[in-house]
């Protein structure tokens, strides 16, 4: 019984001090102790022991061990009992840093004895050190407060169940933002209409209007609140309430019950795409077990999820969570299916959409609101799935709290129902000394790029030198290395706009066209099956005709939209109308429609073939609707085995994989066109595709061009446009697309703008602020030169002509028509085989064979000898130094540095007898240098 006696002793000790002060205890004294010592755990976020101490009502209700107060007998109260336990007792309060000083215990004991008065309406909040410091820090920051906002911008409360979480959002003069919900003075203007419950507002009256008001730092923000039918309840709906729980708890993910075969005998449709089927499986399989209408708590659906019985997916949520309550309530109401016409989700929105966090570990709550087809809306923050595309920069937890990490930009994706939306988070270092630098702004590109860099507090690199520029622009615009004469002509040019003039000259060269013909030939998969012999399609002849057609069209400078319309609506024979070969590159209709979306819109819709896209907007309806445009391709053979005629067969439909119903043609992300039977669906699609009606086309082409010049797309990879892979600079992409449309899809004009921009002309040298950045165009990216251009450069520099199948001696690798024609060098350095439309077909990743081939292979060694470049220079009587200079100009496009001259000179001096060989070794060394095969 010693256990019982000890507290009594302590109580007696406390009782002694109590005699001293006779005045009644002021609530503020108690409040200070509660807020300082108890609320850290007994707050709405933690509610340890299920005891909440924020309000009188909650406190009186008590917790797990019963009521905290029993009458006025202090020593009987759980509250006091716990305080006076011995220090090492398991149940002592507070558990850390306890027991409380005797004086504080006495205050509480007396307060209880005096009736535990708690003035009405007083709400306590935890006070901890970190928070106090944060508050003080915020107070300092508040002097630069620019704007105070409340999100969402307005609230409509439709039923008793409806609620909306409120976020108070501060923007400061330095453009940083902060979640100040916990610090603002936040209240509902008329608490008879609506009231707060934590940070969520819910209806009190049946109908009415009021406002949510937040004030902080001398500023006030208010949003309207409207209550409609606030006293009416609404039944739990299978589609609106139960299905979202499955998505949120990952029940229907691909690794669990969403797998095509289900998991452990239970299957749900992947990401809930088939609620009808899910309803049947839940209610008609294993009757009485999966759902137990008599005892809802004993349904396996309930028991598995709360971990009451063993579950391969472990416990998913607590028994007293809202998720479980929803499921239980639905079952208790008879597990009914929804009436036909139940409101569907029409869209979702996140708040706030743009946040700028300062320093590590800053947090921001984001909320998600869904709108329904009946005009209502709901807060679905607790039902949405959150995901960051860049965890090191900003993470987001399952409740939508964003937490900052390293400097950079990230997108927070929220997914609910079939919708995905993003909020952008920028993280900048705390206390950064930054002043917006004066950066050249040549055109609209720089405006967008510089604005973005400013927001990220990144200082761009300086402008590249003329030497760097001329080499870069030659490689990028025409795919050739500048010859020493071209180099010096540019360097000696005194015109102030010589960079622009140079680009102008280059744009008129045929090599510019050839480079883009090659790039389009990759996207259009121009290749033959030549390696398998020439007796099976695709035939070499067809590939050649197809390529020549493309080269001709681009050579005429025909706008790309017109070429695309001709291509996609082509009908005729593969020999007589070469453009129809596009339809021979892929005979599978599903794959064909995927390819078209990927090449011309930059979108990968493959996922939606079997299920709604998990990170994007595409549903199966979109997929099969787009596929329907390709449902009526007819093909017939001719006498010539190499000629197949493609025509509009006027019959055939696209069948939805799940519903098995025919889906009407619908533009991807657009409307359903009005079609009459027999209309050429491909023509209708083609005319929409390459027109301003399709916003993705211009964006995609603009992005392709941009990525070619900057090394990384605004959306990157360029063929992976999706909600969860947003553009790094949306304004820039919008501008580029708008300009391309305005230029009537003339790529040349866009190239002019890009090459003129300061963004393109930056040096690749980094500074402290942009060293880690690759996506915001603060510096030039160092890029390995692509296989064809590199081989052409080797050929030019060593004066050894190339020979490729079907092309005359001395032709360039860029000019090869057929993707199947290659050689060891091109294959090893990653030339596209054009076997798929993926942008990854062109590889610039290094590998061991490349290093070995440059070092020992014939591409460099043999060509140096064969081309006799050094030999001829020696024969012409050039001095060592002249030769070295010339080699540097040829290979690196710059003068040698002193150390480099000396090193070569020393090597010649060491073995003067073999001067030519040593100089050729220097030539070899230059061509094995990264400076040679990287564009910088």
């Amino acid at each position, binding site marked *: 019984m010693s256990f019982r006696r000890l507290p009594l002793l302590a109580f007696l000790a406390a009782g002694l001090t109590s005699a001293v002060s006779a005045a009644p205890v002021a609530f503020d004294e108690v409040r200070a102790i509660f807020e300082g010592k108890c609320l850290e755990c007994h707050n709405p976020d933690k509610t340890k022991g299920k005891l909440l101490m924020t309000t009188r009502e909650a406190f009186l209700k008590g917790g797990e061990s019963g009521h905290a107060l029993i009458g006025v007998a202090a020593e009987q109260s759980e509250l006091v009992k716990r305080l006076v336990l011995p220090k090492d007792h398991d149940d002592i309060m507070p558990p850390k840093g306890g027991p409380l000083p005797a004086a504080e215990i006495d205050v509480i004991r007396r307060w209880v004895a005096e009736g535990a008065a708690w003035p009405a309406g007083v709400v306590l909040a935890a006070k901890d050190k970190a928070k106090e410091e944060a508050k003080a820090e915020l107070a300092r920051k508040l002097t630069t407060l620019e704007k105070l906002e409340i999100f969402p911008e307005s609230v409509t409360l439709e039923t008793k169940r409806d609620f909306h979480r409120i976020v108070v959002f501060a923007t400061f003069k330095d453009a940083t933002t902060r979640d100040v919900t916990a610090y603002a003075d936040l209240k509902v203007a008329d608490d008879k209409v609506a009231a707060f419950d934590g940070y969520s507002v819910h209806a009190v009256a049946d109908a009415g209007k009021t406002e949510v008001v937040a004030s902080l730092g001398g500023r006030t923000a208010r949003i309207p609140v409207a209550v409609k039918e606030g006293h009416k309840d609404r039944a739990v709906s299978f589609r609106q309430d139960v299905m979202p729980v499955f998505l949120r708890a990952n029940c229907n993910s691909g690794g669990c019950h969403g797998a095509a075969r289900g998991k452990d005998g239970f299957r749900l449709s992947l990401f809930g795409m088939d609620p009808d089927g899910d309803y049947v499986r839940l209610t008609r399989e294993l009757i009485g077990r999966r759902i137990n209408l008599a005892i809802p708590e004993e349904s396996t659906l309930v028991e598995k999820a709360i971990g009451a019985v063993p579950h391969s997916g472990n416990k998913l949520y607590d028994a007293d969570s809202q998720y479980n309550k929803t499921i239980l309530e639905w079952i208790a109401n008879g597990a009914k299916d929804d009436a036909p016409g139940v409101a569907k989700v029409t869209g979702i929105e996140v708040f706030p959409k743009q946040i700028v966090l300062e320093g590590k570990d800053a947090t921001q709550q984001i909320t998600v609101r869904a709108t329904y087809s009946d005009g209502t809306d709901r807060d679905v923050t607790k039902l949405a799935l959150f995901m960051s595309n860049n965890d090191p920069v900003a993470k987001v937890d399952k409740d939508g709290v964003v937490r900052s990490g390293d400097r950079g930009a990230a997108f927070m994706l929220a997914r609910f129902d079939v919708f995905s939306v993003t909020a952008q988070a920028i993280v900048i270092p705390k206390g950064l000394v930054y002043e917006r630098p004066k950066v050249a702004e040549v055109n609209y590109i720089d405006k967008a790029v510089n604005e973005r860099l400013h927001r990220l507090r990144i200082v761009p690199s300086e402008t590249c030198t003329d030497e760097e520029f001329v080499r870069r622009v030659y490689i990028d615009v025409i795919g050739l290395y500048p010859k020493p004469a071209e180099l010096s002509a540019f360097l000696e040019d005194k015109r102030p706009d010589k960079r622009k003039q140079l680009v102008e000259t280059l744009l008129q060269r045929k090599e510019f066209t050839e480079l883009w013909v090659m790039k389009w030939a990759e996207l259009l998969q121009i290749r033959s099956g030549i390696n398998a012999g020439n007796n099976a399609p695709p035939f070499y002849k067809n590939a050649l005709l197809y390529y020549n057609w493309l080269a001709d069209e681009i050579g005429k400078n025909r706008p790309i939209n017109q070429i695309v319309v001709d291509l996609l609506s082509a009908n005729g024979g593969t020999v007589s109308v070469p453009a129809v070969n596009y339809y021979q590159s892929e005979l599978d209709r599903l794959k064909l429609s995927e390819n078209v979306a990927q090449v011309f819109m930059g979108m990968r819709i493959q996922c939606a*073939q079997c299920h709604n896209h998990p990170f994007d907007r595409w549903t199966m309806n979109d997929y099969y609707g787009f596929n329907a445009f390709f449902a009526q391709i007819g093909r017939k053979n001719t006498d010539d085995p190499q000629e197949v005629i493609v025509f509009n067969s006027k019959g055939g439909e696209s069948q939805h994989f799940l519903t098995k119903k025919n889906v009407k043609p619908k533009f991807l992300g657009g409307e359903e066109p009005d079609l009459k039977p027999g209309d050429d669906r491909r023509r209708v699609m083609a005319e929409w595709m390459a027109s301003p009606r399709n916003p993705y086309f211009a964006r995609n082409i603009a992005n392709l061009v941009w990525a070619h010049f900057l090394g990384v797309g605004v959306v990157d990879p360029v063929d992976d446009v999706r909600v969860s892979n947003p553009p790094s600079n949306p304004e820039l992409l919008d501008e580029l697309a708008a300009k391309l449309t305005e230029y009537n899809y003339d790529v040349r004009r866009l190239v002019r703008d890009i090459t003129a921009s300061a963004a393109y002309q930056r040096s690749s040298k980094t500074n402290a602020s942009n060293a880690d950045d690759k996506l915001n165009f603060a510096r030039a990216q160092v890029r390995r030169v692509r296989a064809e251009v590199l081989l052409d450069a080797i050929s030019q520099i060593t004066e050894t002509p190339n020979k490729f199948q079907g092309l005359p001696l001395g032709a360039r690798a860029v000019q090869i028509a057929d993707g199947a024609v290659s050689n060891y060098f091109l294959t090893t350095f990653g030339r596209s085989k054009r076997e798929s439309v993926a942008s990854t077909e062109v590889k610039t*990743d290094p590998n061991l*064979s490349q290093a070995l*081939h440059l070092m020992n*292979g014939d591409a460099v060694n043999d060509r140096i000898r064969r081309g006799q470049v050094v030999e001829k220079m020696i024969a012409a009587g050039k001095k060592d130094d002249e030769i070295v200079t010339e080699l540097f100009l040829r290979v690196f496009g710059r003068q*040698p540095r002193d150390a480099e001259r000396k*090193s070569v000179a020393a*090597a010649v001096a060491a073995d003067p007898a073999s001067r030519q060989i040593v100089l050729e*070794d220097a030539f070899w060394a230059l061509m094995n240098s990264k400076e040679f095969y990287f564009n910088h």
Partner: protein
Amino acid sequence: MKLHRNCEGNHPDVLSALSRRDFMHIGMIGTLGLSLPNMLRLKALEMPKVESFNAMADSVIHIYLPGGMAQHESWDPKPFASPDYRGPYTPIKTSIPGEYVGEKFVNIAKIMNKLTVVRSMTHGEAAHERGTHNMFTGYRPSPAIKFPSYGSVISHEQGSRNNLPPYVVVPSQSIPEQGTGYMSSAFGPFALGSDPADKGFAVRDLLAPKDVTTQRFERRRSMLAAVDEHFRATEKSDAIGAMDSFQQAAYGLVSSAKAREAFDLSKESDKLRDEYGRNTAGQRFLLARRLVEAGVRMVSVTFGGWDHHSNIKGAFDGQAPQFDQAFARLITDLQDRGMLKRTLVLVSSEFGRTPKINGTNGRDHWPRVFSVAMAGGGVKEGYIHGASDALGGEPDRDAVGPEDLAKTMYRVLGINAEKRIMSEGGRPIDIVNGGRVMTDWLA
């Protein structure tokens, strides 16, 4: 809902997603032990932790017989079936009492007591490239994603040893499924580029050109260092770093006689080369042994064409003896050198062939049941797993899928195939989805 032909729906869950950009950074590390300035991005890889395994083997020789080798004529003869099922051969007894192999497996019959033979492999893909995909990745082909081969996963997970590339294909990458799938090509195979069976076989670019002496090579190297210095010092990028490392690896290969010798068959005695067989199978298998001996982790060897729709006897008579001799000698050679315990040898094919001989005296594609053989590297000696039915048409018991085989192979190397790797588009993907570690096979 009927299963879609292309979609098992076994997609991993999508929650712990990362950006592809992070993946690209990480992707460059590993193959050759690269150290990159952006190593800190590694912390981005917060994938769920998985249990780690002790390796039972250091390397794998994967012998692949393209075309689909008939089970009846090889590992799983049916001596008691009627002639139109049994086929043209008379099965022979092996060193495991009561077990038979095809007539042409004379040498293999003697070493059968060193092997684990799985006679109940099964999958549902009857097209060559789809079956091949199954047997090189452990995954069914998917329209949305390309899966990496065993070798690329091993490169990604374990990196290189002794200056040698971790993953080598012999003789060259003839099968797209030997590639890197969704991974960076930095994890791709190093291809010999020529056939070990050719006269004067030499791996391309491995040796400095004839007129470049050691002294000259050193001069080139020092000049290269001098002219490359400025660029290396001023430009920073992962690609430059990776290329630098490949260049170092190339130097390692070119200047380390030992590493280079791994590719040099002439270092083998004529006697042993004869015993392996002076033919495609013999010399390829012998080179594979040299490579793993020197430190290559995965050698993927292909041999022959086994798509015997007609005249299966003639075709088998031509190829099977080569395979028999070379494979049996490989196993005894590995054993003689004490390497068998730490080297897994795996023999597979995309599928088996129809139980009944067809109208042209051949057999057609049959993925329902076929056989796979293994030796060394922690698998049992003289063990037969599962069985096909009396006609060799369906698994009779203990059916095994490609995912089981893949998972077990990774397990032997100490790789937990439940680990996830980030693919393009930020989708984390299990090394092997589902499947079992076949503990029955392990010694």
